[in-house]
């Protein structure tokens, strides 16, 4: 067949018609855009974000969707790096035309996304990142489009400092990832401690670092009363393995991701008894709503939900609730509906203050007999 101008023209027309039809079909979906790390050193968490989103979407659509419309979650790889995250969000907003944008996992990336949501005039829900600047820049006097469903690092650092003082720790050494999250966490806890516990060192490692021999060697001879951790799951899993090899018994404190399925077998060795963490969620929590959620999640994905899976699931349900009350996905109406949220979540009600920050519960958890136990449910 010879390609003539006319046949190319016909093809072009056919293609244009196709775009309109599929465009019309997709426009009926309520689209949620999620920039999250599918690759890189935080990919394990990105996988859980995706799973949490899938479960929420399946449940909502199984019950007939929202206002007769289906919901769709679209995941775009961000590598958890600000530049890639921005590119992912731009694509979700301009090409996929999502109605609601989600924040990334890593605080640095989420902070970079905030002005993009504002410029696009689309609601953005931060379900995972915990840097306090996100709240300070959101809501009254700032970016009205951004809502956060999880407590921030200042709230958590207050709890962490309290525990350290109660425990009578005299010295602490920090090991943290070299990001906004890691550096922020160390700074806030240090500030809250106000010099009452001596900080003997603070190490910041790139978040793909797997070798901790130099740090552990130094800490082994420095003998702090506690090692404060601000790193994410894959990295801490490597850290804890090497810590066991060093035969150390100093408790890990602050925010080690002890809630992670990745470290359960390391906890079971009993070498981490006494270590504790503060997290917004743990799948071992025995509240009735949570047990139902965990069972459904395990039935789908063969492992328990990580904190990020829980919070993404919860945030999508909450977004669906806002769309329902707004009666449409008109950005302004949706923003108003989100601000008026009173959603009954798995751990309690979610409502936003005038900085669009929810005051969800926090969990204080400690390792006992090789198992992580929820010791206290704290308001935030």
């Amino acid at each position, binding site marked *: 067949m010879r390609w003539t101008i006319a046949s190319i023209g016909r093809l072009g027309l056919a293609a244009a018609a196709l775009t309109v039809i599929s465009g019309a079909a997709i426009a009926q979906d309520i689209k949620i855009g999620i920039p999250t790390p*599918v*690759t*890189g*050193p935080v*990919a*394990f968490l*990105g*996988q859980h974000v995706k799973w949490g989103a899938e479960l929420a979407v399946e449940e909502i659509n199984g019950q007939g969707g929202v206002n007769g419309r289906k919901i769709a979650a679209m995941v775009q790889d961000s590598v958890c790096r600000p530049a890639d995250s921005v590119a992912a969000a731009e694509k979700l907003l301009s090409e996929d035309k999502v109605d609601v944008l989600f924040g990334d996992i890593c605080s640095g990336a989420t902070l970079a996304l905030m002005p993009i949501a504002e410029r696009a005039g689309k609601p953005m829900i931060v379900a995972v990142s915990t840097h306090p600047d996100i709240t300070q820049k959101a809501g009254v006097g700032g970016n009205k489009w951004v809502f956060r469903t999880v407590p921030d690092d200042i709230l958590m650092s207050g709890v962490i400092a309290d525990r350290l003082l109660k425990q009578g720790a005299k010295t602490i050494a920090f*090991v943290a990832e*070299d990001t906004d999250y890691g550096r922020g966490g160390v700074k806030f806890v240090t500030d809250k401690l106000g010099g009452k516990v001596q900080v003997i*060192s603070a*190490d*910041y*490692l*790139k978040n*793909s*670092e*797997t*070798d901790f*021999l*130099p*740090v552990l*060697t*130094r800490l*082994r*001879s420095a003998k702090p009363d506690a090692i404060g951790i601000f790193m994410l799951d*894959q990295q801490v*899993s*490597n850290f804890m*393995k090497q810590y*066991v*090899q*060093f*035969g150390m018994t100093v408790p890990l404190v602050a925010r080690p991701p002890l809630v992670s399925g*990745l470290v359960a077998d390391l906890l079971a*060795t009993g070498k981490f008894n006494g270590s504790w963490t503060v997290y917004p969620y743990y799948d071992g929590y025995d509240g009735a709503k949570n047990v139902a959620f965990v069972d459904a999640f395990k039935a789908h994905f063969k*492992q328990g939900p990580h904190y990020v899976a829980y919070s993404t699931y919860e945030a999508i349900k909450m977004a669906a609730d806002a769309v329902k009350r707004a009666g449409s996905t008109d950005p302004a109406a949706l923003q108003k509906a989100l601000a008026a949220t009173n959603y009954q979540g798995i751990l309690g009600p979610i409502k936003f203050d005038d900085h669009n920050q929810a005051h969800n519960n926090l969990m204080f958890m400690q390792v006992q007999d090789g198992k992580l136990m929820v010791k206290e449910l704290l308001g935030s």
Partner: protein
Amino acid sequence: MDGQLLAQLIVNGVMVGCDYALWAIGLTVIFGILEQVNFSHGELYMLAAFLVQVLVAKAGLGYEASFIVVLPVMAGAGLLLAKCALLPTLNRPFEAAILATLAVGIILQNAARMIFGASPLRIPTRYEFVTFDVFGLLVFGQRLFIVAIGLAALSLLLAFLRLTRIGAALRAAAQNKDACLMVGIDIRPLTCWTAGLAAMLCGVAGGAVAPLYDLYPSMGTDVVFKSFAVVIMGGMGNVLGAVLAALILGLFESLAGGLGSSVLRDGTSFAAMLLVLLVRPNGLFGRTVRL
């Protein structure tokens, strides 16, 4: 200064240096003989690690026994790499081989992601949680295993290159390819041999070093950069130079990270690389200590 701390840091540095050496040998062999840069080096390492993981954790094979299966498979992978990326680019400018091997690496990494997902995996070994306390100095079981198997691999490699006909041909190719053609040595089968050897060395590294850490599809990325640093410092293509450079780099990083702070560590190692390039552009040991 705490003497015990310093001694432990030096011991650590040597142990880490052995990891780096094992990582880098495969890369330096391909460069030394073929003068081609293999950007799929890290992914070959990843492939070997996942193979060992599957054999040990899923198929229930013994950890040491898994090497017997993995090494021939890796030799096959090397052969495939030669057929797909190295042979077709043999007479092209050097960047063709870089792009071709990079493509192989990307394909391998994404294939691993599709098959294994993003959840990190572990290789359980009997040495993993064994630590020897020698007068207060800690020596780790898996690291000793790495030293032993690394020495064995290096001796076998050198013996192969020095004592066999193929080895002699490979050394000839490393010195002068045009002269090889003149005396009737065909470069193409040598390319296959080299890639097979390099992939098997990646197999040894993947099997021995990877159990130290969690396994995930992009684990090769850091390995390839560290290997490049070592190969450049040691003198491109110089096997013994790479081993020495790896030990120096390991010590350097250990002392920088242990006495200074963790932030210093990566910075200093790459600064060392830059310094070597400025002062001795052919590497610390140049091409004087040949294959």
